[in-house]
């Protein structure tokens, strides 16, 4: 399953107005732990349809990173009904990420 890349322009529709809870994966190409986390996110995205996964490249979307106080990646921010409900910073194993799903 493809993970949607979200930008400042699409953030509102894709994340804040989403019917399902959203896990936004803030990442960057140069970030090793982000690349390590990616297969887990891909796997969960195809296993779970009760949550939507999106990816935000912090180099291209630094405004979003700043707005959501992201200053370390990988950072997973969980949104429900347009609001942040949880977040997890750093590389985590799959069971820990499952626990984030509201």
């Amino acid at each position, binding site marked *: 399953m493809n993970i949607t890349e979200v930008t400042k322009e699409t953030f509102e529709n894709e994340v804040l107005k989403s019917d399902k809870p959203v896990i936004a994966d803030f990442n*960057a190409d*140069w*970030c*090793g*732990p982000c*690349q*390590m*986390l990616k297969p887990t996110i891909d796997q969960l995205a195809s296993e779970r349809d009760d949550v939507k996964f999106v990816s935000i490249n*912090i*180099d291209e979307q630094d405004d979003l*990173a700043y707005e959501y*106080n*992201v*200053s*370390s*990646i990988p*950072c997973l921010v969980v949104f429900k009904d347009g609001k942040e409900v949880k*977040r997890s*910073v*750093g*590389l*985590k*194993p799959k069971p820990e990420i499952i626990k984030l799903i509201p």
Partner: protein
Amino acid sequence: MYDIIIIGAGPAGLTAAIYARRASKSVLVLEALSYGGQIINTPDIENYPVAAHISGFEFANKVYEQAQALGAEFVFEKAVEILDSGTEKTVVTTDNSYTCKAVIIATGSENRKLGLPEEEALVGRGVSYCATCDGAFYRNKTVAVVGGGNTALEDALYLADLAETVYLIHRRDAFRGDEATVNALKQRENVKFIYNSTVTKLNADKRLTSIEVTDKNGEVSTIELNGLFVAVGRIPENQNFAKLIKLDEAGYVSAGEDCITNVPGIYAAGDNRTKNVRQLVTAAADGAVAATEAVKYIASL
């Protein structure tokens, strides 16, 4: 029963797996998080023989694939205890337990924290333990680095190229790290040194906004900043094995260059062992030595 169980899939553990498999031993590698260990945080490795430039992520993938292709088995569970009944050892994980003839502990180390109450909640909101990972968030901002060793000095130098101002806070009046790096830092106009001081409080409003610094006379001052980089050393991840394995005062496994611990058939490889040089290449070297010793031990049973 496995011949060898390796705890930790960083460069030491993966190299041990390669050597053990090439000696035709059955190998199980247990890893709590993800293969690669802390090297995955390094964007560019420039000091490993043959590879002039390679990212830590690519390095980790290559060694992992090599170990896997040779037939090492991988299970992603955290090892919490080793039980020794002489010729048979049991490694207990959070989910299962596995038996083997020899164990190689290659668990590495983790960042030492300042130990301030607000610290954990602010990780990723202004507090960081890795300048090369998170420095990009602080372009033209104000940051501080805490620590006096080489990591702190190199972090400060790295951040001096990005940030507007870098405070370097050290609890003593002289640095333990390389003089050359200290001199390089002194050339930078945007690096400010704060000696004989410790960080005593983190202030935040959604994210870190300022820190409180206390000097040796008890005088308190506040520094407004955007980011705090903590580089006060690392802690070896040996606590789970301390009952069985002899550790040194700092918590590293007391084992010489032969990687042999106080328990026959149990070896230590990599950053969690007492040693002078903790580098990628010495971690890999430990893996080779520990696996070779383990193979020798199994042959003697």
